[in-house]
């Protein structure tokens, strides 16, 4: 007997067995179980979120509630942006606020800057502003503790020591640098 014949014979036997088998009732709940298996699956959370977002909805709100909430949200956002933009200070170093003042009652100078060891002697980093009330060029800066050398650079070329500095030091180049003593307690001199 060839293989093909053997297959046809077997199939015939199976069909005959099915036709001649006795009839039996369907078990209880069979249809429900089959239908439950055919129910669509619960969508994933992401898909549900997407459906929630794209499905049109009607929202109602009271302006009296929404306006303060939006204002608060904007304020918090602005605060976060400002905080991110502010460079962080080294927590290991306590900086002290110091105030540089150069008296110039009649505002003879056109521009004054402080140059010193704390700004790498770069005038553009510490340009002073003129305070008309005080009749003086003023700049506030935060400096680490220690003794700092500095000078005023007037009109971009003239080097002027601070007349009120407690101490001056020969700079080795033929000029005198003013000395500022800064401790870690937000005090300038002691």
């Amino acid at each position, binding site marked *: 007997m060839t293989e093909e014949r053997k297959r046809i014979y077997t199939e015939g036997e199976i069909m005959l067995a099915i036709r001649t088998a006795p009839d039996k009732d369907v078990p209880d709940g069979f249809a429900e179980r089959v239908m439950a298996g055919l129910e669509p699956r619960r969508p994933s959370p992401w898909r549900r979120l997407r459906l929630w977002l794209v499905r049109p909805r009607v929202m109602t709100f009271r302006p009296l509630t929404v306006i303060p909430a939006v204002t608060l949200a904007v304020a918090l956002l602005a605060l976060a942006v400002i905080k991110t933009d502010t460079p962080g200070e080294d927590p290991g170093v306590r900086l002290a606020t110091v105030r540089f003042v150069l008296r110039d009652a009649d505002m003879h100078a056109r521009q004054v800057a402080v140059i010193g060891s704390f700004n790498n002697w770069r005038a553009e980093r510490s340009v002073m502003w003129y305070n008309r009330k005080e009749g003086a060029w003023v700049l506030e800066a935060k400096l680490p503790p220690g003794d700092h050398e500095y000078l005023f650079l007037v009109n971009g070329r003239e080097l002027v020591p601070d007349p009120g500095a*407690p101490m001056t*030091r020969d700079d080795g180049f033929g000029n005198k640098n003013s000395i500022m003593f800064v401790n870690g307690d937000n005090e*300038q001199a*002691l």
Partner: protein
Amino acid sequence: MNRRCRISGWVLAGLLCLLAVPAASAADIPYAEAAARARECGVLSETLGLVASGVEEGGLARDEGAALLMPLIEACANRFPLAPFEDKLAEGLAKHVPAPRIIKVLEDRLAAYRFVRDLLAPRFRDVDPELLVTMAEGVSQGTPRDDLKRYVAEFSSESPEPFLTGAHMVCLLGQSSFDYALTRDMLEAAFAEGGPLPQWRYFIRIVLVGRQRGLADADMAAAARRVLETGGTLNDVSSRLGFTSRSLSGRVDSN
């Protein structure tokens, strides 16, 4: 005799060659190579940029640019902190000081650092960089070397932090021509009580204000000594001398 002279001549010539080689290499090194070596040593790009700007804008000749960087390269070779040298170079360039003058100041500073290193090395296995900078900058700025020699000889066995504070005091007072004998008396009292607190480095401020008010250095030192004997603070000294704390510390202006 003749042979001995010939040998001495060869030895002398050899020594001269040894001395001449480093000098020639320092003087003849091209600017680009000096900049590259300085960069390798860790000289800040900002400092290199200042020199490069001077060279590019014509304010500095290329060989001047190289010569300005050589003391920094030497400081690096000696393992000295570079920041004080970078700062002085930036200061000189900002003040438009001629390059040879800046180089001289930087070389003097190198000499000060070598002096302090040689002073401290026999007594400390690892020299604290902050101590090295404090004392070397003090020497560069006019503290008598002899003051530091005497201070190190007498107090180098003290704890590191009070010893550093004492070094600050010796340097700042020395620059103001305060007699070292007075400083020494104060420090002796301070170390007997465990050493001066860090705030004592600013004793110089009391001295400067006291001098303006006509007080003698010896009287201020005596007041400080009495306070140090009890482990007191600078405020105690100013009270003893009749200063208000505001006259010393409450001032917030630079003048």
